[in-house]
């Protein structure tokens, strides 16, 4: 069905999954404020939040099955949005599950923590749906404000407060750049609608105007801060280290995925015709990010910091897909987000399982000999490290994620051979720190004074096992997922074709 977004009822239909999540989160917020704070309430709200996420996921599956689409409007109704939403919901469910065990151990009884995760996720879903710079801004802020609070969730921890402050100041600073970029693009194109901007930036007079170029540059800086591209990455390691571990997982997986989803949509829908202006800078950012992230990660001793730099490196790999800009690249992009999200969640799940109250046992050396005491946990961690590395077979879908990005780089109309070469070379460098963790776990003896590994909470087990099994199983059958993400790559070409001509094509793209 083709939704006409100028009719209020159909606009609500188009936005219903997001509103379902927001409304549900508000009811849960009331529930958590109504009862006295307690451990049991924290768990109940957590379980209710997971149920809400599953409900929203089912709603989205129903929308995918209906195959709705929309013409020009503020909200996009397409498979790119639905696929991105599913990735965010997977990351949210994993985060809330890890948070329940982590909060119990750290003595954080505030049940609002899960509700804040839901609010941040509703912001992400808004970002994925945005087809207007106003909605882009609104989604980014709904997400960011909730995540600033989440970073400082552990009130008693000085590190958590410091992480929140750094994240807040740099996040607000980057919002300023993003907003100024939006203002100048609006000034140059005369509209905030992405499809209309896409039509107008190609016109002579606007195409090379200074206002448009400066606007695109400021937007690139703003998004660069949000997804932590080098040289705008310096906040990420500090914030990732200081924030509570499940929230770090959430920032590394979902927040990054959401920022990239909206980045890709803005770039390919609004600025596709202005690619001369941005291709060079994006190309260099990708190269610098891949190199800096991987090389600095080699020197890290703290596993959370190591994964922070690894997430910067992955931002570089994903940016390669933005630089390519073909439909095949957006499909590879979505597949990469899914693989990266699952591997990151799993790896942080293992960290949550081994961490001690107050933030002990976070050095890579503390993992020595894990294989001898907790073989399954060590095996799962090995799978996550190999998936992040992109190792065949044992790394599961991590291998295919990188493979498809490289393939789309080489098969694009303007082949990005050099980017593909840099991607492969920096991946080889990344083996230095991913395999180091595996080596420490399997080949070093357990040190004398090592603390016994405590019993692992049920939800943490669930997250670790589910991510490990999915990574390996989908690595054997990657095509089923690939078909699903490929449909997300065929974004409707509303910008260039007349609406009436574009619509039949949209409704067949499922």
């Amino acid at each position, binding site marked *: 069905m083709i939704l006409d977004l100028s009719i209020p009822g159909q606009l609500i239909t188009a936005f219903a999954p997001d509103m379902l999540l927001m409304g549900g989160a508000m009811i849960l917020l009331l529930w958590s404020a109504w009862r006295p704070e307690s451990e049991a309430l924290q768990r109940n709200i957590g379980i209710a939040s997971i149920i809400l996420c599953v409900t929203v996921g089912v709603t989205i599956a129903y929308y995918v099955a209906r195959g709705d689409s929309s013409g020009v409007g503020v909200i996009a109704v397409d498979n790119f949005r639905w696929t991105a939403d599913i990735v965010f919901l997977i990351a949210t469910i994993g985060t809330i599950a890890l948070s329940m065990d982590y909060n119990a151990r750290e003595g954080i009884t505030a049940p609002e923590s899960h509700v804040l995760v839901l609010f941040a996720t509703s912001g992400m879903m808004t970002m994925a749906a945005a087809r207007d710079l106003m909605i882009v801004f609104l989604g980014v802020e709904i997400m960011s404000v909730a995540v*600033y609070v989440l970073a400082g969730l552990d009130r008693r921890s000085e590190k958590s407060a410091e992480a929140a402050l750094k994240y807040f100041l740099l996040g607000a600073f980057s919002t*300023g750049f993003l907003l100024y970029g939006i203002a100048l693009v609006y*000034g140059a194109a005369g509209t905030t609608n992405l499809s209309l901007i896409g039509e107008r930036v190609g016109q002579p007079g606007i195409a090379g105007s200074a206002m448009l170029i400066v606007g695109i540059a400021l937007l690139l800086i703003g998004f660069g801060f949000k997804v932590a591209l080098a040289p705008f990455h310096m906040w990420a390691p500090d914030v990732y280290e*200081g924030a509570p571990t499940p929230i770090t997982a959430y920032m590394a997986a979902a927040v990054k995925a959401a920022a990239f989803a909206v980045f890709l949509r803005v770039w390919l829908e609004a600025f596709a015709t202005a690619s001369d202006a941005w291709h060079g800078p994006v190309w260099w950012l990708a190269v610098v990010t891949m190199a800096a992230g991987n090389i600095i990660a080699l020197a890290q001793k703290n596993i959370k910091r190591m994964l922070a730099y690894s997430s910067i490196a992955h931002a570089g790999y994903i940016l390669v897909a933005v630089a390519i800009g073909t439909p095949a690249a957006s499909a590879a992009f979505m597949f990469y987000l899914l693989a990266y999200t699952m591997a990151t969640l799993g790896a942080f799940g293992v960290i949550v399982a081994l961490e001690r109250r107050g933030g002990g046992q976070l050095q890579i050396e503390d993992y020595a000999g894990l294989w001898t005491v907790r073989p399954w946990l060590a095996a799962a961690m090995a799978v996550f490290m190999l998936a992040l590395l992109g190792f065949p077979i044992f790394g599961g879908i991590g291998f295919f994620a990188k493979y498809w990005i490289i393939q789309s780089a080489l098969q694009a109309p303007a082949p990005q051979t050099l980017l593909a070469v840099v991607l492969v070379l920096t991946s080889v460098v990344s083996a230095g720190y991913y395999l180091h963790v595996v080596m420490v776990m399997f080949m070093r003896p357990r040190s004398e004074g090592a603390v016994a590994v405590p019993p692992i909470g049920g939800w943490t087990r669930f997250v670790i096992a589910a991510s490990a099994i999915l990574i390996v199983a989908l690595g054997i059958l990657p095509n089923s997922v690939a078909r699903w993400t490929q449909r997300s790559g065929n974004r409707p070409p509303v910008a260039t074709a007349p609406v009436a001509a574009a619509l039949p094509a949209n409704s067949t793209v499922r």
Partner: protein
Amino acid sequence: MLAESLAISAVLFTIGVVGVLIRRNAIIIFMCVELMLNAVNLSFVAFSRYYGAEGQVFVLLVMTVAAAEAAVGLAIIISIFRHRQTVNLQNINLLKG
């Protein structure tokens, strides 16, 4: 009018950016961020004289969001003050490496 408004907006934005980069007090940095946002608001209002109400709607959106951000940001600054008895970023340096 448009050129002058945009020039003032750019100057204000630059003052905000420079302030964020050189000042070390968290509250002053936050005020500089607010200055950046308001500089952008000025641009939006100036553009909306030419393109219609869209820019003014955006300004209302930005003001609402800035208020929400201020609420959260000041709470975060208070929480760090409780730990360190200072909001000077030079003394806030647990996380590095």
